């Protein structure tokens, strides 16, 4: 900050209304001038990188610490690696990540079965609680859904029958 005052001393009144008290984000931010040091602060020891960790291309380096859960793998991992070639300001970053999330749901399901685990989808969706607290609503919704599926099946079957008759 001292250097800035020297640098702008030819501009009358430079910085006169800018004491830290008027920091717009005060008191959420206790202005210290550290912003002007940018990323040149003293860092603590680096966490060893033993797994693949994707890093935002808006960063010049790995952060001091990071989470190590679920490293990228499979098709979803390939998509994630591509996504990280785009900045956080780009849809090219976020939309592929959502796609990768959905693909990894299927990959995880396949892994479960491969490992001899058959997920209890009823339980995983918390439907036991739904049965306990909203039994009538659950029955009603189930009847509506079954009814809609049955109606759609009947319509499709009828169309096929008509098409078959017309082709005869």
């Amino acid at each position: 900050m001292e250097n800035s005052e020297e640098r702008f001393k030819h501009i009358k009144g430079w910085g006169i209304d800018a004491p830290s008290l008027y920091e717009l984000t005060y008191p959420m931010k206790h202005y210290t001038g550290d912003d002007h040091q940018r990323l040149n602060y003293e860092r603590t020891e680096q966490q060893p990188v033993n797994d693949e960790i994707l890093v935002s291309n808006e960063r010049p380096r790995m952060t001091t610490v990071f989470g190590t859960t679920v490293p990228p793998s499979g098709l979803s991992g390939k998509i994630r690696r591509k996504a990280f070639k785009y900045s956080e300001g780009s849809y090219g970053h976020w939309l592929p990540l959502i796609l990768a999330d959905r693909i990894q749901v299927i990959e995880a399901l396949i892994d479960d079965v491969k490992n001899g685990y058959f997920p209890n989808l009823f339980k995983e969706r918390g439907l036991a609680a739904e049965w306990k607290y909203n039994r009538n609503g659950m029955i009603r919704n189930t009847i509506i859904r079954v009814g809609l599926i049955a109606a759609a099946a009947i319509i499709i079957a009828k169309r096929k029958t008509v098409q078959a008759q017309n082709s005869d």
Partner: protein
Amino acid sequence: MIAMNYRGPFRVRTDRNKPEPRIEHPNDAIVRVIRSCICGSDLHLYHGLVPDTRPGSTFGHEFIGEVIEVGGSVVKLKPGDHVLVPFNIACGTCSFCKQQLFGNCHESNPEATAVGGIFGYSHTAGGFDGGQAEYVRVPFADVGPEIIPSGMDPDDAVLLTDVVPTGYQAAEMGSIKKGDTVVIFGAGPIGIMAAKCSWLFGAGRVIVIDHLEYRLDFVRNYAQCEAYNFRSIGDPVLFLKKATDFYGADVCIDAVGCEAAGSALQTITGRKMLLQAGSATALHWAINSVKKGGILSIVGVYGPTGNLIPIGNVVNKGITIRANQASVKRLLPKLIDHVQSGRIDPKAIITHRIPLEEVADAYHIFSAKRDYCIKPILIPPSARA
């Protein structure tokens, strides 16, 4: 160990054989979880709205526990300490942490720059496992964790990791002046706490808007405020203009975020089709309800892409927008005092205490708003013994 395991949108389960966490950095600690909460923002993950939420992850950024192991450089904690752990992971040495922006740490999340590391909140927030488990790794153990004051109820302590600081900071960012009218959108745990805390800043009138009657009833009693159902008041913006002598609220707080109800257009484009980063209905109403020159405080969580909001009205009305993840560590000394002195009673918002093993039911109850749920906490088996 037992841990929550995300399997995909609306699907979670309890794993019984997840490997226990280990020290990965000299300033790590391993904490045995005593209480963890499901946060409203965990539901955004649960609903598949946050990019880079990988199946196999364990959620949970609100937790307390007992330190069982520390890394070689940890000096402030020792095994046996009971700690509350802020949801933000902060290094304490970057430019942002030095300025007490502990929610904006630059050294805890390699996968994004816009958000610091958060426990159990997707790889977009650093890829850390969270506290909905028996054990959790806590990085920067000398910086974030706070030893729980003796005599403090664990249920109060766990709500000091996020709910109370976020609600408090929502009010703080509003720069509420004595006599101000404060409108809060959302009567979830954060909105409830923001309403309570608005009085601490001298608000003259506090109004909460939501659509769930049981939550409106709760906030009326808990925060001694007015509360209205937007489904029964017509146009909420017009209602609020009339309620403020056609002037507008001095301060509006968005405590809803990306899953707001109330607008078919926002719901379809934001929550169903993901064409925007969630539904911005509450934000829309807040911008249009605040007075000219007023302040809009945002603590509701939105995705990283973009949202349909009337930015032209922000300009024309000269609105100041303030927003951030709560800087929990900065606020803790003050908030611990508020809790110990009885000015805030966090545990009163807890409606459900559910075994960790029943995490799927807990998520469904909270997500579907069953059984008058406001705030569920998960209790691991070792903490029930």
